[in-house]
């Protein structure tokens, strides 16, 4: 059955209200394919939309929103940027935090966990270096389904090798029945996953040294994007590093962050970027 304009608009509005994600008209075709099982259960798109509108059965709207979200992710997605983050940017933070020996990292919009685990694995591989440090990794996503999967740390054969080298795969994953690969508890326990929307209350102020918010804000409207950037800035320590997705930038989007002059491709709080630039120039 054809998806009417009216139904598409209602579903798109629901998605945007709950998550900030806008479904561009050119991506509306996704609605039907993403909602196929729901449409089958309800008999038609219009009946599904009516049921969603009255949220009956309870939880239907949540489930539909989750199905409409794009959860694409993989390990070390955009490898050169991860090399920058876990190389020079992390070394700089290591120097800055040598006194407190504490680092806090936030993956906002973490999907099924590969991004947070990419970082956790690296710390686990550098035990002597981080001896005596407290490294907190918090990963959040609006979708309950992906957070549950992330917590399990269990990936299909297809997922486990996407972005991950075979050495790390053999070191940190156990092969299980049904071509599944289970992440070692040692790494799994390093990440705390929470269901949380970027639109909801901000996390505690000035707490994170590294923030990843990648391939999440792409489909936000400009206003919302600016609000979220401001919140990320508020949640960041003055020296914090922000990492976005490969095609994303803060330039022209917000004044809260600026290009990190030492690590191009990463971003710093706007106030921090200027002195670093001076230091780099001298």
């Amino acid at each position: 059955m054809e998806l009417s304009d009216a139904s598409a608009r209602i579903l798109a509005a629901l998605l945007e209200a709950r998550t900030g994600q806008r479904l561009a008209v050119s991506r509306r075709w996704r609605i039907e394919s993403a909602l196929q099982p729901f449409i089958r259960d309800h008999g038609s798109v219009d009946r599904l939309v009516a049921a969603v509108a009255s949220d009956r059965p309870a939880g239907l709207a949540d489930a539909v929103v989750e199905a409409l979200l794009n959860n694409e992710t993989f390990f070390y997605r955009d490898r050169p940027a991860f090399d920058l983050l876990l190389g020079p940017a992390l070394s700089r933070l290591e120097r800055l935090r040598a006194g407190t020996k504490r680092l806090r990292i936030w993956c906002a919009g973490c999907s099924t966990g590969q991004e947070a685990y990419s970082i956790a694995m690296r710390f686990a591989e550098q035990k002597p270096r981080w001896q005596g440090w407290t490294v907190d990794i918090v990963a959040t996503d609006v979708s309950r389904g992906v957070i549950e999967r992330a917590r399990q740390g269990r990936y299909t054969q297809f997922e486990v090798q996407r972005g991950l080298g075979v050495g790390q795969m053999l070191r940190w994953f156990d092969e299980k029945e049904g071509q599944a690969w289970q992440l070692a508890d040692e790494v799994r326990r390093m990440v705390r996953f929470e269901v949380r929307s970027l639109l909801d209350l901000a996390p505690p102020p000035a707490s994170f040294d590294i923030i990843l918010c990648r391939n999440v804000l792409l489909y936000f409207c400009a206003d919302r994007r600016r609000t979220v950037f401001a919140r990320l800035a508020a949640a960041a320590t003055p020296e914090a590093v922000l990492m976005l997705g490969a095609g994303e930038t803060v330039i022209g989007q917000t004044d809260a962050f600026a290009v990190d002059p030492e690590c191009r491709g990463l971003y710093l709080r706007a106030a921090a970027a200027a002195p670093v630039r001076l230091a780099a120039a001298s």
Partner: protein
Amino acid sequence: MRSCLVVDDSKVIRKVARHILETLQFAVDEAEDGREALSRCEAKMPDVVLLDWNMPVMGGMEFLRTLRAREFPSQPKVVFCTTENDAAHIRAAIDAGADEYVMKPFDRETLESKLQIVGVA
């Protein structure tokens, strides 16, 4: 331009791999089995070999062992690409001198990242 030799007895797999590799700016050559791959390497050594496990005439492991035992002026990176998808096979391949391992099915992101990890992309 980096070069890749795709060694697989399946024409379909060679075509899929070629397509992805070309979008990653590789010059691609093909061989249907290990023996043909060896003569390609003798003629001109590629930067990287994408290697199937089971092939007629000469399989991937025999090719790899022969390649690594020969004194070529340079050795290519070797990325296995196969349906032998268990940890034991993967370890055996690495022990025999493979640099990376791709389990079929795979996509562009998987192949690209493996090529980055071995340092050719």
